[in-house]
């Protein structure tokens, strides 16, 4: 039956076995779409395993440029028998199933409301290749070729990509092209193009395609970080690896070939943050990158950094918790653990990047903030941003920008006789001056400690002295409000009496959900929170709207808790929309929840 094709707006999901070489083929497919000028939003859904377990790759082809997950699958590339039933069940009604038809499948394995496209991939491979590894790897390329033909893509984009990937290794280029062509030819001879079509467009522009971890690492380079101490943990490992790569590239002394950086793989997360605190104490910009379990281990040092006022930066690439939780799935569930990390009364600035572009800018900014505020600054990525490539605007840097080292008294300052009290609030903003060790032969030295002390850094257990210091730390936190990136208001087209607050990796799906809700006649103003402590604008936004939804990817409404606790908001004023199954939140989920909560009046009931 002839159907009008759907152009540039559908979801392809690849179901594979981990370790089968599918990741690079699937990535190739996504890049091929982008080279045709059509934006993609691609996400890896992978197991905590190296070989053998199921893994998925979801590519959303979206001329409109929706970079969040939509939800649902239009074309399933089912390459994993283990997950066949679940994969088939996930296809939208009227959707398509692509499978390896080498072995005949019983009719009961399919669904009546979907179309099935079989390509005998294994048979083709076995005929063409002798080496088992080649059979496996080229099978992936053959299905990319088949998809290319089925979806009306230009094979030339893949030729270019092979040429870039294998740079001059002609044998590899030819072998991949041959495999691709095998898939293309099979479809042209035996099948019809699908009514899902990729059509050349010009919607990608000069955007770049990059993972958040890589972007954050590059941000750390531009932010002047010189010391990185880390311990491997999914999903943060690639951040340290990318920092290493970029430092080798950008921070090698051109004359001596020596390193203008020091990267240590520590024995654990405690040592990692210990080294960061030591380097920060000594005037170098230092960071570690980790995930939830690492945050738990680091808490004692975070408290020391807070109380002794030592700059540190922690990139927390959040994964599913608690405990080992879901190590390869995404969540925004470390907010409270980070914001109030450590025993005693503590609070720490957090940054919430929404995509890799902000991972770069906030990755650099975090070091200025840490030096300015003399405390630990957390950059709260998550697995979805950190380990998936996102299409974002090119990185930008202002050539005139200088690193803000904060309040440091130099040799000259000390020599001039300026009074130095390490914990003295000279400027009324709660931020004291510090000295680097070794600054001056007779002035400026002090004993840094996690115990209570007076403004001149001398040990004191006097109640009044302690309280003064704790109050100053609160003033400092108040100062932080003006330094954290301000929330971004997204006004509805019409007058909206309801609002929604969101942050981080939910933002792309949220933007799309807002548009979908508006189309249904539900107007909402959006406020994207970009950091903690919250600006007054967050509380003004809540006051200005009748109903306020808070969208987050955790079970316990952690952002809501922070907003309520820090601003004295009546909890009933805020309605949570929570998604925490470990997959990235979708536009459909958010729009559906908000529409349902509004329609059923559950929101009013809460008020």
């Amino acid at each position, binding site marked *: 039956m002839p159907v009008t094709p759907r152009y540039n707006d559908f979801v392809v999901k690849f179901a594979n076995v981990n370790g089968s070489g599918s990741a690079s083929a699937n990535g190739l497919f996504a890049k091929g779409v982008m080279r045709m000028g059509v934006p993609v939003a691609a996400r890896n859904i992978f197991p905590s395993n190296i070989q053998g377990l199921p893994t998925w790759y979801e590519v959303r082809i979206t001329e409109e440029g929706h970079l969040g997950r939509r939800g649902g699958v239009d074309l399933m590339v089912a390459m994993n028998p283990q997950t066949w039933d679940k994969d088939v069940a996930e296809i939208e009604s009227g959707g398509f199933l692509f499978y390896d038809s080498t072995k005949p499948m019983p009719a009961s394995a399919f669904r009546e409301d979907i179309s099935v496209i079989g390509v005998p991939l294994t048979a083709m491979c076995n005929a063409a290749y002798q080496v088992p590894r080649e059979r496996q790897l080229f099978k992936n390329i053959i299905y990319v070729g088949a998809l290319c033909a089925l979806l009306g893509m230009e094979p030339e984009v893949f030729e270019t990509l092979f040429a870039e990937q294998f740079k001059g290794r002609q044998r590899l280029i030819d072998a991949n092209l041959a495999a691709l062509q095998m898939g293309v030819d099979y479809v042209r001879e035996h099948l019809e193009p699908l009514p899902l079509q990729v059509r050349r467009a010009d919607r990608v522009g*000069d955007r*770049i395609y990059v993972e958040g971890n890589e972007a954050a690492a590059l941000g750390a380079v531009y932010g002047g970080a010189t*010391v990185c101490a880390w311990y491997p943990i999914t999903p943060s490992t690639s951040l340290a690896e990318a920092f290493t790569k970029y430092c080798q590239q950008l921070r090698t002394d051109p004359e001596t070939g*020596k390193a203008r950086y020091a990267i240590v793989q520590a024995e654990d997360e405690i040592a990692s943050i*210990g080294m960061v605190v*030591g380097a920060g104490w000594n005037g170098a910009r230092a960071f570690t990158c980790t995930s939830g379990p690492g945050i738990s281990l680091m808490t004692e040092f975070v408290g020391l950094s807070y109380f002794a006022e030592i700059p540190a930066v922690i990139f927390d690439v959040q994964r599913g918790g608690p405990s080992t939780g879901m190590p390869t799935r995404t969540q925004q569930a470390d907010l409270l653990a980070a914001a109030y990390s450590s025993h005693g009364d503590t609070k720490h600035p957090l940054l919430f990047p929404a995509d890799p572009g902000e991972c770069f800018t906030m990755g650099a900014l975090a070091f200025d903030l840490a030096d300015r505020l003399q405390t630990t600054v957390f950059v709260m990525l998550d697995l979805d941003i950190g380990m998936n490539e996102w299409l974002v605007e090119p990185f930008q*840097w202002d050539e005139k920008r200088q690193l803000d080292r904060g309040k440091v008294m130099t040799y000259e300052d000390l020599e001039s006789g300026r009074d130095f009290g390490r914990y003295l609030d000279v400027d009324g903003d709660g931020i004291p001056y510090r000295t680097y060790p070794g600054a001056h032969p007779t002035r400026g030295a002090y004993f840094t400690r996690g115990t209570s002390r007076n403004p001149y850094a001398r040990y004191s257990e006097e109640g009044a002295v302690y309280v003064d210091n704790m109050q100053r730390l609160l003033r400092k936190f108040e100062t932080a409000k003006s330094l954290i990136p301000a929330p971004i208001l997204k006004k509805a087209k019409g007058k909206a009496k309801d609002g929604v607050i969101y942050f981080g990796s939910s933002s792309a799906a949220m933007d799309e959900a807002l548009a979908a809700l508006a189309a249904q006649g539900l107007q909402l103003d959006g406020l994207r929170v970009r950091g903690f402590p919250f600006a007054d604008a967050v509380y003004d936004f809540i006051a200005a709207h009748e109903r306020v939804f808070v969208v987050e990817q955790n079970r316990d409404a952690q952002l809501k808790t922070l907003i309520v606790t820090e601003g004295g908001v009546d909890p009933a004023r805020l309605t949570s929309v929570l998604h925490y199954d470990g997959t990235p939140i979708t536009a459909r989920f958010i729009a559906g929840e908000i529409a349902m909560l509004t329609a059923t009046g559950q929101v009013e009931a809460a008020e």
Partner: protein
Amino acid sequence: MTYILKPQLHHPKLPTNSLGYTRRDYEGSVSTLCAGCGHDSISAAIIQAVYELEILPHRIAKLSGIGCSSKTPDYFLGASHGFNTVHGRMPSVLTGANLANRELIYLGVSGDGDSASIGFGQFAHAIRRGVNMTYIVENNGVYGLTKGQFSATSDKGSKSKRGVVNHDSAIDLVSIALQLGATFVARSFSGDKAQLVPLIKAALSHKGAAFIDTISPCVQFNNHAGSTKSYDFVREHNEAVNRLDVIVGREAIDVDYAPGETIEVAQHDASILRLHKLADSYDPTDRVGAIAYLQSAQARGEIVTGLLYVDPEAEDLHDGLGTVETPLNALSDSELVPGVEALARINAVLR
């Protein structure tokens, strides 16, 4: 109380070193430890060593963990920056500090609880990384600040003040440090200043991980009969393998020692370690031999002291990482921030 500063006044005729500093210029606040504590003797030895080495006090960074020993950096080198970190984690903080500025001299002071129990892992890893530091453990075999619990260096069978016998095996930090690749390993006794001061001087001059286990009796909780870390026990069972002089480049020292075999070891910084051998068979440049010697002495119930091992050609963590000579904390913005053109090239690769 540790906030009591010592009066600055001193006798006008106090001798000075070539920098014009008196020994008093290397002191810190008044100690709050118990009278007679071995740790105070170690602080005095550190002051003496730095005075004699003629190091400007602000060029030293002193770091510690938590416990009686870790309080002591407040009591020496008052013009040095100090950092009293968290329990058992001084090694990582010192490592980070060292990475940030390779030009300062790093002195880590710790205790047996701090380094052999809670911080055993960090102790091990800082040593095996070859962090350029002097790491002193003030080893009294007991938790003093929490009033007398056994520590991980308490000998099996030793008796606590309350009469409890320790069942667990002791960790010998010296043997461990040798196995981990420390390039300077010594043991001394807080009551033996003549031995301890030169050892500290030699360790401060050493490039690489220098470890000194200093037995330091706890007068309150571990100085009774039955303790193997008491003054009496250590004096009776101390077997010194050598006596050491440290000769720094410019000075010519006439050594007044009883004749015996002497070997000289030149360190990276041109200091000469002149070792007067007391035990004939002992070679302080033989790591394997040192371990064997220690084990056999231990089996006899003897505590070996002196410079047990030194590798004068040692490399440190910075050598391994290939870092620039300029301290990382002194690099300029232009050396750190790659700039707009580099970013444009990166953007191009990511399309």
